[in-house]
Structure formats: structure tokens, C-alpha cells
């Protein structure tokens, strides 16, 4: 397979994002457990990265010149597994083994067990430091590769995230782009009620980051921000993506309960209809 993919075809990307959501829901229902809400909220972002922005080779996951993606919010594993499968890292049938004993598709991503996973995550707050280290290492080698790191908005309550934000600013890591999935919800409810993180943008700005604020479900905006971030020099970039948790399925949207609940068979049927998968 050739290097993926660089097709700035918004209609194509939107359709891929729809398929990604369908596959996420199917695999979660089959597994009977897993994180629905946060996988769906970041589906458009991950689609834009894997089907458009990132240079990567599914037939050669360790290709040196690849761009790197770190899923700091590791519980969105179903999303990562889906984009990896759909871009050709492994057979789609493997998605049905999510969370089953012995499966490489662990509840949270394991880099030792699954090709394409750069590093194991699942304990929140650790991914951005790892991304920084990769970005520093790539800079030492004058590599053109870029590093992307996806965080949750509840996750940024972790202190280590701000240590890492300071580090990226200090070392001016302009080959790094963080993306925060601002879906306003975490496990115990609204981030605003659990532990206020707003205003978010001034915090990153204060640590010397370049800020993009976008609608995280508008493919044109996602793609434009990712393109522009590449042109920002002397600073790391962060894309603050306003999203809806559970996006794409009306009865999951904005509901904290569906953070860690998989759809039932009945819910799946209704959800697939909403996503235009009638009769399949």
C-alpha cells in the first residue's frame, strides 16, 4: 500500500467519518463494553488525521518518516482501532475481538500487542509528555515528521498535562500539534461542575502555544486547522475542538452516562439507521 493519503476531499472525509462511527458502534455492541461517547466525539478529528493529514504506511507501521499519533485519551481505543483497521493496518474482522481475552485489541491501546499503536495509553494525562519527547527526538534528527496528540477535556485536569504544556512551549516544539476534544463531559458529569477547566484557550496561550478554536465536527474546519498548524513556526499548536460527546447518535449526544456504556443491540439498530445504514 502506498503512503496514505492526502486527499483533501471533504465529502470523501465526511463519508469516511460516517463509516468510522458505524464501525465503532458495531464493535462496541459486539464487545458489550467500552467507551462510546468519547470515541464518537473525536471521530471526525481522527478521520481527518488518518485519511488526510498524516503521512503513514499501514503496510509498514514503523516507517521512519511517518507522522505519529498518540491517543492520550486512551479510552477512545475503539476509535483508534477503527481508523487503523479502515486504513489497512489489520483486518477489519479483528474489530470484533475488542476487549476479549487474548485479543490485541485491549480495553485501552497496547503498543506491544497491536501494530500501529505508537505507545500504550489509558492512564490519563501522560500522552502529551510522550508526544513532546517524540517531537524533540525527531527535531534532533532533522526529521520532517510531525506528532499529533489527542487529549480529552476532563483529561486536562491532570497536572502532568500542564507540565508537558510548559515543556512544549519552552522547547518551541513546532512539529507538535495537540488536539483537545472539548466535549464538555467527563465521567461524573459536566467538566464545568466536576472541576472547572474553562477558560481553556488562555491557559494554552499562557504556556506559549498557538491556538486554533474550531467546530470539531466541521470537516472543513478540522482540515484547515491541521493544514495551518503545519505552517506555525517557533511554537507548538493546539487545536481546541468544540465537540458533542456521542456525536452522530441522537440519543447518546451530550449524555455523560454513555461515556463508558456500549450500545445494546436495540440501540445499535436505531443508531445505524440514524447513520444511514438501513437494512444492513
Amino acid at each position, binding site marked *: 500500500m502506498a503512503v496514505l493519503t492526502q486527499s483533501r476531499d471533504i465529502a470523501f472525509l465526511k463519508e469516511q467519518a460516517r463509516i468510522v462511527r458505524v464501525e465503532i458502534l458495531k464493535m462496541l455492541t459486539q464487545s458489550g463494553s467500552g467507551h462510546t461517547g468519547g470515541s464518537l466525539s473525536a471521530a471526525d478529528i481522527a478521520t481527518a488525521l488518518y485519511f488526510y493529514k498524516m503521512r503513514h504506511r499501514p503496510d509498514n507501521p514503523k516507517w521512519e518518516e511517518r507522522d505519529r499519533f498518540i491517543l492520550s485519551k486512551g479510552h477512545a481505543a475503539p476509535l483508534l482501532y477503527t481508523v487503523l483497521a479502515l486504513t489497512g493496518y489489520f483486518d477489519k474482522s479483528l474489530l470484533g475481538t475488542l476487549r476479549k481475552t487474548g485479543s490485541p485489541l485491549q480495553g485501552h491501546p497496547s503498543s506491544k*500487542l497491536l501494530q500501529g499503536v505508537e505507545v*500504550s495509553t489509558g492512564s490519563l494525562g501522560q500522552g502529551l509528555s510522550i508526544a513532546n519527547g517524540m517531537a524533540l527526538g525527531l527535531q534532533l534528527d532533522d526529521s520532517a515528521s510531525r506528532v499529533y496528540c489527542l487529549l480529552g477535556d476532563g483529561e486536562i485536569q491532570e497536572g502532568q498535562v500542564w507540565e508537558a504544556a510548559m515543556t512544549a512551549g519552552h522547547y518551541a516544539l513546532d512539529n507538535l500539534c495537540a488536539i483537545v476534544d472539548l466535549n464538555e463531559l467527563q465521567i461524573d458529569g459536566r467538566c464545568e461542575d466536576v472541576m472547572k477547566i474553562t477558560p481553556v484557550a488562555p491557559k494554552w496561550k499562557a504556556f506559549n502555544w498557538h491556538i486554533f478554536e474550531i467546530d470539531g465536527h466541521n470537516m472543513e474546519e478540522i482540515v484547515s486547522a491541521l493544514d495551518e498548524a503545519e505552517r506555525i513556526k517557533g511554537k507548538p499548536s493546539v487545536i481546541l475542538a468544540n465537540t458533542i460527546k456521542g456525536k452522530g447518535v441522537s440519543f447518546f449526544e451530550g449524555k455523560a452516562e454513555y461515556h463508558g456504556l456500549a450500545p445494546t443491540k436495540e440501540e445499535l439498530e436505531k443508531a445505524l439507521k440514524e447513520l444511514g445504514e438501513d437494512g444492513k
Partner: protein
Amino acid sequence: MGSRKQEFRVQSPESGIKTLNSELQTLNFYGQAVATRDAYGATLVELGKRNEKVVVLDADLSGSTKTAKFAKAFPERFFNMGISEQDMVGTAGGLSLAGKIPFASTFAIFETGRAWEQIRQTVCYSHLNVKLVATHSGLTVGEDGASHQALEDVALMRVLPELVVIVPSDGFETQQVIDAIAEYEGPVYVRLGRAKVPAVMPPDYKFQIGKAHTFHLGKDANIIADGIMVAAALQARETLLKEGIDAGVINMSTVKPLDAEALLKAANASKLIVTAEEHSVIGGLGGAVAEYLSENHPVAVKRIGTRDTFGGSGKPDDLLKLYGLTADDIVKTIKSALSR
């Protein structure tokens, strides 16, 4: 999955090892009484000359950990992370994923205590090639007192899957440990000290990960020691010999994986095993030895170490006396165990 065997992979020679024909291998700490942190600082610079992949991180203690020497020699390969140990460990993980060989240093308690979960989740679970080399372990930190004296770090590190744990005894051994772990592919914790320590290892000594060094095999007792307690154990042997007691001494510098073969030989040679370490008797070398022998070859085991307590301020030698970590304490322990 399931029981995964520890693998010992050595990097291929072409993997970035640059030979500069200059004064290579001139460094030699054999026979020198130095602090293990000093041997570390000097060895890192030599390593940096030979291997371009080596990068070093510190958390605002580079003057004390001696990584400042590397920082001076290779400023572009040194990253001061500020006072943020968790971020330091994660960043080291990222650097290893970009093909570098990161050495991350700070004081032992901050490295293993503050960043324990980062070491578990980021470094060990992904089997990253990160070298955690901590200084200022144990009571011999001295005047700074309990807050700065790690007596639990070996226990904290030993429990982690995939991690190799090494406690060198002197400068000569430290130098070899640092070279060896740079060649080894995988996560390693090395525990170093602040105070000057006597030279104990023989000139022909060659450190290997997972291999203990047996100075003598004793008929009456065998002392399994690491770090500064190897010197104390050798001294205790001399004292006991004068009284007709034959106590052997084994330097178990790799605490994990434990050298089971050497341990079994010692347990076969004598009915008494004594462990000695500058660490809590809970969970460290004594814990490891007791666990192994009770399952595989039960013999009497006595553990010398701190006994479920914090340290305190004072001169290192006074503290070692106060907490029962001297050659005399080893002698007394062996005599009382044998007289029973």
C-alpha cells in the same frame, strides 16, 4: 500474553554507535573510592562521545546527579525538564520512541516515587528503552534527611514488570553498568548514591545484567549484598574469619532479574543467608531473596536494612550506625543466628 519471558536484546552495532578513535575507554574507576554518581557523570560523557543516540534529561538537579557534565559536553542532547519528574519520564519515553537512548536522572525518591505511575504506564507497559538512573538513594544522602532519602525505591521498581533493577556497589561497577544498559534494549532502573564509597570490585570484573559476583562462597553463612553494603559485607567476612566463621559474600547488583543460580549455590553452601542493603527490609533485595528461597530452597534468612522506618538527618556514617547498617551489624547478626 500470560507469562512473558524477560528478553535481553542487544542493539546491533550499526545502530548509531559512532566510534571516535580519540581517547576511548580511558575512563577507568577500578580501585578508586568515588561516589557512584560521580562515576555515572563521567561515564555518561564518554558514552555520549561514542553513541550519538544517547540523550540525557534531568529535573533541576543536574549538578547533584552529575548529568551537568553531559549537559556541558553535549548541550543539544541534554534536556532540563525543570522540577517536573512525571513529565521528564514521559518525555524520556517519547525520545526513546524516536530512536534515542534517554537517560533520565534525579534523586531516587522523586524519580521512583513521584513518577511511579509514569514509569509503570508509559515506560514499562510499552517496554520503552528508557534508562532511569537515580542518585541520592538511601541514608547516605545524609543531612537533607528523610524527605530526600529513598529507602523504598527498589521495592517500588522491583514490582514493575519488564523493568531491570540494578544497584551498583562502587565506581568501577557503575561505569560498567552504564555502558551495559546503553547496549541493552529495554527499561532499566539504576540506583546510585551521593557519598563516596570504597572500591570493592576486582580488576577483572565484568558486569553483566542478571549476573551476581561471588567473592567467596562461605561454609557457615553467605551474605547477599548490594550497593554500599557490599563493602560492609567484605569487612564483616574478615572479622568473622578471625573468629573461625566462614561467611561468603555475593554482590547481587542486579536485583531484578535475580541471579537464581548464584543464590542457590550460596544457599546450598551454607544454612544461613544474610541479605544486606541500604534500603527497607521490605520489598528490596532482602525481600527478593527471601521470596525466592522460601519457594525454592528454604534456608534461614536474616535481612539487614532499615526496619520499616524513615531516615533522618546526620552524617552518613553516623546514620549507618544508627540504623544498623554497618559491618558490625552484619557480624552480630550472623553470630547470633549461628549460635541458635
